[in-house]
């Protein structure tokens, strides 16, 4: 006996995102960090800060920590991204 059954999933695809234009180089530029603030991240991003300046000539590094490591970045942090040339963030703990 044939049964007709329905798809339980969200069949709507997300709208395609648009990649930001990459800079030709990072010398003299501003890079922002968005950290989840978990154990180890302070030292990790401190090393990253130093290496960006020494190896890629980055002029300014701005470091931001989310107020909630289980939620997206705070709106005021996202708003600051417009003033940066690149962002480094991640998933992990």
């Amino acid at each position, binding site marked *: 006996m*044939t*049964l007709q*059954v329905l798809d*339980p999933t969200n069949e709507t695809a997300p709208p395609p995102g648009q990649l930001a234009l990459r800079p030709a180089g990072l010398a003299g530029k501003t890079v922002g960090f968005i950290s989840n603030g978990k154990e180890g991240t302070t030292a990790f991003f401190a090393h990253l800060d130093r290496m960006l300046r020494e190896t890629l000539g980055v002029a300014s590094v701005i470091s931001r920590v989310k107020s909630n490591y289980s939620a997206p970045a705070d709106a005021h942090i996202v708003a600051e991204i417009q003033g940066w040339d690149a962002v480094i963030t991640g998933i992990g703990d």
Partner: protein
Amino acid sequence: MQLTSKAYDVEDIWAVQEFYHSKGWTDGLPVVPPSPDAVQACLEWAMMAPEQLVGIEPVRGVAITAEKLAINAVMAGCLPMHFPAVLTAFTAMLQPEFLLHGATASTGGCAVFVVLNGPIRQELGAVGGFNALGNSDRATMVIGRALRLALINILEVRPGGIDRSTLGHPGKLSFCVAEDEEDTTWLPLSVQRGLPAGVSAVTVMAAGAPRQIMNEWTTRPEEILETFAAEMRANLRHYSLHGGNYALIIPKQLREHLQSAGWSKTDIAAFIHERARVYRREWAEVGKGAVVRDRGDSIYPALGSADDLLVIAAGGPAGGFGAVIPPWLGHKSRAVTLPIGACVDCEPPKQ
């Protein structure tokens, strides 16, 4: 009514199981085939159009429609009469303060703990007696299961995908309790949390596994509650220092001692708020000395305020047992209570 979900013609019920399992559309258990008729019956019972918006998952902007929730409810074994509770629970989970994405993606592996209050319990045969935290009755099993299937299918919360739970716990299959409002002098949980008496309601909480305590050797409220507080202190020590909503399940044997002494849920919460707290330095006693640092004298209460405690009357009539249900991540996800059948603040959150 016009359903828009893709339909599949499958040979028989056994083929349905293999088809849905192979697609990753199940929780590992057999599912009830979600036929158009069964889905429409749920929508008609709840008086909802298929395309009606239950809500939007805030982080990813995913719209949850009544049709999709009904499909997952049918799969879980829900009858139409169970669907309003599923709708209300999921609407509550989509409130920003519940932090649905964080709670369901986290390595912490919490489940959605659900409490039913009001006349709906009798209508559904939801019983807050024997085996309250296990397989107590059909209604609470299928309502709890429907939420997990909806998370799996509508929000792709699958193990190793968005669901990064290291361990999880059995409550992720179904974790729903009906409060025993008839055999207690206490106010129902929903009334404690601000709803009018007599209104059917659902409370959801991002919760860890229940921890059973036992104290059948005293009738003194302070001593009985001290055992609950000790279990909460253990959670602060062994799991997480962050305070938030905790739930206490208090079955009849212990409940009668507290009620006889004139203790209300408010009295219980005030006591627990004072007693369930630890010093950060205690973490050094349980192998976590590395993160005590110079903050050893800091005090961490399990509850931000006494109002954070959810006290629930449920469980069988005998046994000096109780349960502590800890939060996933206390200060990040808050319990939400909503009435069934009322549309409260139905507009999607403005960006």
